[in-house]
């Protein structure tokens, strides 16, 4: 997207939408660089959820009274908004879940046991979040599915030759990889992966927990088969995630959780599942959260995903100029195509000590292994600190981080 300009992007004005950004931490301005773990919420999201609870709340798909109909309409409007956000062919392909984790577990359980056959394989990569690794390990143990792991290069990119080699025997039924690493910031070549997977008879699931926040996602253009993301990283509430799947795949999959709302008929002897997507939405869904997610999608689309991407590209360039210049700092991963997630280590400070220091000057970063323990082992590091950017992050904050890191290294001598 070279040449994209963002004339309307005014980060100072955007920051005013996020009440928490004017909070002080230990007397210092908050420099929130942990949006990759969970993003802050704009007033538009907070107000939409409050307004719904104050004026239009009831359970959905149940009552024949006004409030329930209004709540149902709001819930289904959120589904349409998500379909538009992902450019899904139909809103019925959108399944609301509790989180990305829940969405992947749904696929692992339902597609994994209901469609994949013992002896087939699932291919993941070394840079998966535990949420896109452990469910497949569980499937392997329970259902006799082989689990293959594609390598990551020293630069932190997916090794496509290795992907191809591991697809070659045609046993892989599903490729499940991240669309953007939550540690390395690497954006994976989704369209290329879809072509590779399909050429070898496999389906492609993309974990878009990070990517969907930073770039426009068009599932039809990408050519993937499943896509998952979560509300709380997209400036929306916790407790809601999304599974998008191709209709014919969702229809072929057995239900995951059983309960109310997912049935069309129940007797004491058995049940008939409801059509997609209700089949996968057992129990009272996250109604208020869906309304919040809808508001979050309206918010980012109002700004424009291209503008957000362009802004974050500036931040990435700034970080790539400033962070490696800090004495003793090692940056993990240097992918060509990357987003605003930077994992790093200082040669004389443990990640937790560093995070404590940064916190003291108002900077919030994550420290540890970021739910990606095998990836840290791959790069031979015990733990890292991670700075991750959001649409409200400023270049001044990136500079401040670099300055603080230099001072922290001096502190530990």
């Amino acid at each position: 997207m070279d040449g994209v300009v963002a004339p309307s992007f005014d980060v100072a004005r955007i920051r005013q939408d996020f009440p928490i950004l004017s909070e002080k931490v230990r007397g210092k301005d908050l420099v929130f660089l942990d949006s990759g773990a969970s993003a802050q919420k704009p007033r538009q999201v907070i107000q939409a959820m409050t307004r719904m609870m104050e004026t239009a709340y009831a359970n959905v798909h149940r009552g024949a009274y006004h409030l329930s109909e209004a709540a149902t309409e709001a819930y289904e409007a959120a589904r349409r908004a998500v379909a538009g956000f992902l450019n899904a062919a139909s809103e019925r392909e959108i399944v609301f879940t509790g989180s990305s984790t829940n969405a992947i577990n749904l696929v692992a359980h339902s597609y994994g046991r209901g469609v994949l056959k013992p002896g087939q394989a699932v291919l993941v990569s070394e840079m998966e979040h535990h949420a896109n690794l452990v469910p497949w390990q569980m499937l392997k143990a329970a259902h006799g599915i082989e689990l293959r792991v594609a390598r990551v290069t020293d630069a932190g990119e997916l090794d496509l030759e290795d992907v191809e080699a591991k697809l070659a025997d045609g046993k892989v039924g599903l490729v499940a990889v991240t669309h953007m690493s939550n540690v390395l910031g690497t954006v994976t070549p989704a369209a290329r992966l879809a072509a590779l997977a399909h050429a070898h008879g496999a389906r492609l699931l993309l974990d878009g927990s990070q990517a969907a926040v930073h770039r426009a996602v068009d599932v039809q253009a990408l050519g993937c088969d499943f896509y998952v993301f979560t509300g709380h990283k997209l400036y929306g509430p916790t407790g809601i995630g999304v599974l998008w799947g191709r209709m014919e795949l969702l229809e072929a999959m057995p239900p995951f959780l059983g309960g109310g709302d997912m049935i069309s008929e129940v007797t004491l002897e058995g049940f008939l599942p409801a059509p997609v997507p209700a089949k996968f939405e057992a129990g009272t869904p996250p109604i208020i959260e869906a309304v919040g997610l809808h508001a979050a999608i309206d918010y980012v689309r109002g700004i424009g995903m291209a503008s957000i991407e362009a802004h974050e590209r500036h931040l990435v360039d700034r970080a790539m100029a400033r962070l490696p210049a800090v004495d003793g700092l090692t940056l993990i991963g240097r992918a060509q195509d990357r987003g605003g997630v930077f994992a790093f280590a200082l040669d004389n400070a443990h990640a937790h000590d560093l995070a404590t220091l940064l916190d003291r000057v108002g900077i919030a970063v994550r420290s540890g292994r970021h739910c990606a323990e095998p990836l840290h082992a791959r790069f031979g590091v015990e733990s890292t600190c991670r700075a991750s950017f959001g649409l409200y992050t400023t270049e001044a904050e990136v500079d401040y981080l670099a300055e603080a890191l230099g001072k922290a290294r001096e502190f530990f001598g």
Partner: protein
Amino acid sequence: MFDDLRDLYQEVILDHGRKPRNFRRLEEADREGRGDNPMCGDRMQLWVKLAPDGRLADVAFQGKGCAISMASASLMTETVRGKTQEEARTLAEKFRELAMTGTCPDCGGVLEDEMERLQALGGVHEFPSRVKCATLAWHTLNAALENTGKEASSE
């Protein structure tokens, strides 16, 4: 920029963090324990050699972790050497209180000198997410003395 963090990272902590004492494997140990802080990946292994009268003749550890956890383990090995197992358990209990509250109301007792030394880690109580870094070594020591074979966890 970080001057007010000198309470937490006192020179003695930085020194023990950089150059932990008794950082070695103890051959022919009588007790052994493992500690793990799953949230941050800190791990340690601890060995105890007992004297004929049951006292802790030698204590050594190896592991990876932040300055706080390494310094705490290092100071602990020095502090409990020569103590009875009962005294070591008492110190572990008092240290836990110190790490969580910053104060040690019962510290005027017979173990006063030892507790005074450990006060260097008292600053950690202001950082709730870091308390477990300081207490991991002591959990591990307790596990070793109980010799349950279970891994100590700071969680």
